[in-house]
């Protein structure tokens, strides 16, 4: 008998839960707890990579728990987008866990005490995030959100110091309000349609009155917008994130806001496709970018600065999803994966900086490039990546969005394209400031530097590196940096993949087929396919402007010019290759 691997999707949620249970049971024994947690996450990563390879070719698949068919039972749905998010998120969490283990080992002497609650809570966070990614109905998504939010409350206030409690109160109250809004929306949607299954809703919501649809749509977006930290709803984030320990902040910054974005993308594609509120979304996106990055420039603390850049880059994602075109959405999917990695890496590096120099305030840093070149490289690559300097993946993603914006060719998309270029430059300025002060200038120039920075000679400083930057903290960070570089190296296949994912999501039939069965979808299939065809923007002008702007004829002209044109047709656009006049 052959069992399909994809049927094991629920394990992505169950494994971390079981792991958490066992880890709680062994709360007295740190090393057992550690190995259980590590083992669970490694198995989860392997499982999810296997799932991704399966889904890569076959597309969406739904598992109906306990055999109850949708829309009556609970279904877990994995499609290309969800699979990608699962893999990226679990790799990130594994790397952060390794870092946390390293940090725990390094700080054991500081008498901060072994915290037996950390590992199980961390696993519950992972389970909640996976559940939110896989949920096939709104209520299950709500439960997923609550699981990881509750875990995040515990992680944020770990240790219960004054700072963390203060930050925790704001964070908890704001999150609870957004959850309540989500719950209200679920109630209203159920009252209006009589179902909470996402696939079923996709078919039924369009039958509602226009005004009702708009209200439900906006309510959902506001609830998710608070979680995703979109501009007017983002002020809780820089207040609360920086106080947590470095690994916790890293995983929060990388994952939690992206779950919000994931839910927004699902809302925009599956539940309420169309261009009803795109202009409003774009205005919000532009404000998120600009306000976020201006906030970052005002900060002196690296963690706070990064929190603000996190907000501003959420703006890019909202822009991409507001474009409502395959190009924009595929760039968004790519950018989400890229941004999870980059933001996590930067926060981990900041943790290392803080360990090495005793402070994360840029005014008090200096000379780090000389003291630890490894740390400098680890910071430099993701920082440039965040700013979107070519050839890094940040550039590829942003370029895709700008292409989408330019192809749409309305005043609002042009405004957004300009705003995103400006934001990119300001991000560069923000990270360059960290670089110039923390790494480039001399150690003596720093204001009241910590004594960790002031070694007598370079040899002394390098010797201290071994103690302050232990290998088991640097290695996970380096692995994440390598992963972020891999996003550039494999940009071609990844872009192709996210294009396929974007196409699936707008067409919706793969998702609906998987959940509801083909018979129910057949009635509307043509309509859905037609809808998607409208969203395909042809970016390729055929000659990339060569004929107009640079008509060069040489003796080396290839003979079969026709063929060459054809191959170019089929490859460009998929890889987001820089087209002349692409917006910068």
């Amino acid at each position, binding site marked *: 008998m052959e069992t399909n691997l994809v049927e094991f999707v629920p394990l992505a949620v169950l494994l971390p839960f079981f792991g958490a249970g066992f880890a709680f049971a062994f709360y007295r024994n740190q090393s057992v707890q550690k190995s259980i947690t590590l083992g669970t996450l490694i198995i989860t990563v392997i499982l999810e990579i296997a799932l991704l390879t399966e889904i890569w070719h076959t597309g969406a698949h739904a598992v109906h728990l306990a055999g109850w068919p949708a829309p009556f039972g609970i279904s877990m749905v994995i499609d290309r987008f969800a699979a990608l998010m699962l893999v990226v998120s679990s790799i990130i969490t594994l790397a952060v866990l390794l870092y946390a283990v390293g940090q725990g080992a390094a700080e054991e002497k500081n008498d901060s005490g072994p915290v037996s609650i950390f590992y199980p809570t961390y696993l519950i966070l992972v389970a909640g995030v996976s559940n939110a990614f896989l949920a096939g109905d709104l*209520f299950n998504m709500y*439960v997923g959100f*609550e699981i990881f939010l*509750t875990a995040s*409350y*515990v992680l944020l*206030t770990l240790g*219960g*110091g*004054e700072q963390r*409690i*203060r*930050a*925790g*109160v*704001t964070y*908890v*109250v704001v999150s*609870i*309000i957004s*959850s*309540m809004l989500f*719950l*209200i929306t*679920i*109630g*209203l949607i*159920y*009252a209006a349609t009589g179902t*909470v299954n996402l696939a079923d809703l996709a078919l039924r919501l369009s039958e509602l009155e226009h005004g009702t649809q708009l209200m439900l749509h906006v309510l959902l977006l506001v609830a998710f917008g608070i979680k995703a930290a979109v501009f007017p709803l983002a002020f809780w984030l820089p*207040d609360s994130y*920086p106080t947590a320990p470095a690994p916790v902040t890293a995983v929060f910054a990388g994952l939690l806001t992206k779950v919000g974005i994931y839910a927004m993308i699902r809302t925009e594609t599956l539940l309420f496709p169309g261009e009803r509120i795109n202009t409003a979304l774009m205005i919000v996106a532009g404000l998120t970018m600009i306000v976020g990055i201006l906030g970052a420039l*005002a*900060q*002196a*603390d690296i963690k*706070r600065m990064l929190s603000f850049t996190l907000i501003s880059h959420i703006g890019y994602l909202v822009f991409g999803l507001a474009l409502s075109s395959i190009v924009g959405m595929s760039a968004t999917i790519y950018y989400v994966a890229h941004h999870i990695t980059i933001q996590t890496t930067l926060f981990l590096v900041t943790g290392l900086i803080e360990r090495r120099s005793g402070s994360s305030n840029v005014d008090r840093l200096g000379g780090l490039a*000389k003291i630890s070149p490894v740390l400098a490289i680890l910071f430099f690559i993701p920082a440039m990546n965040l700013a979107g300097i070519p050839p890094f993946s940040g550039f590829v993603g942003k370029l895709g969005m700008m292409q989408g914006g330019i192809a749409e060719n309305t005043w609002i998309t042009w405004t957004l394209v300009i705003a995103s270029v400006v934001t990119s430059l300001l991000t560069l300025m923000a990270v360059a400031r960290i670089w110039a002060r923390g790494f480039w200038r001399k150690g003596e120039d720093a204001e009241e530097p910590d004594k960790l920075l002031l070694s007598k000679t*370079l040899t002394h400083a390098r010797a201290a590196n071994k103690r302050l930057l232990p290998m088991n903290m640097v290695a996970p960070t380096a692995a994440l940096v390598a992963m972020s570089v891999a996003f550039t190296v494999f940009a071609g296949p990844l872009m192709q993949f996210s294009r396929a994912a974007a196409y699936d999501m707008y067409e919706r039939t793969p998702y609906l087929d998987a959940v509801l069965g083909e018979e129910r979808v057949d009635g509307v299939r043509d309509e859905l396919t037609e809808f998607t065809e409208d969203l395909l923007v042809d970016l390729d002008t055929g000659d990339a402007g060569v004929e107009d702007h640079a008509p060069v004829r040489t003796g080396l002209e290839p003979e079969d010019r026709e063929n060459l044109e054809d191959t170019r047709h089929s490859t460009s656009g998929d890889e987001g290759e820089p087209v002349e006049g692409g917006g910068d």
Partner: protein
Amino acid sequence: MTINLTLLIVMGVMLAVGIYLLLERSLTRVLLGIILISNGVNLLLLQTAGRAGLAPLVTDGAEPEEYFDPLPQALLLTAIVIAFALVSFVLALIYRSWVLARQDEVTDDEEDRRVAAKPDYDPEEDAEVETETSEFIEDEQMTLKEGGEDRGDESR
């Protein structure tokens, strides 16, 4: 769909009072606000089931419309459990905040205050640049004093 007017009004009042309390600075009132809002939302979920009917067990000869919709109650139960967990967590936070700071209020973020109070003028960025900005002159003097240690800096 039939809606019970009394429940609807009770829900509205609960949400309104809850939101009012949530806007207070005192944490205990915020907590009371959260409790009221979550119960208000639960009432909303309850009402989405519509008019009361037969228990959702198969009864001979009963039409499907006569049964009561059980799903909202399942959702409601889950929501109650979650709200209970959250409320107890917030209560613990408030207690901890009281133990640490002896005050039952949302405290200011110090870093926020510091950044806000920062003058527009940053000596490092906005000061008049001296006429000689080259670092090399200084470096040359340094190398004379200290030997080869700064050479690595120059080569970059």
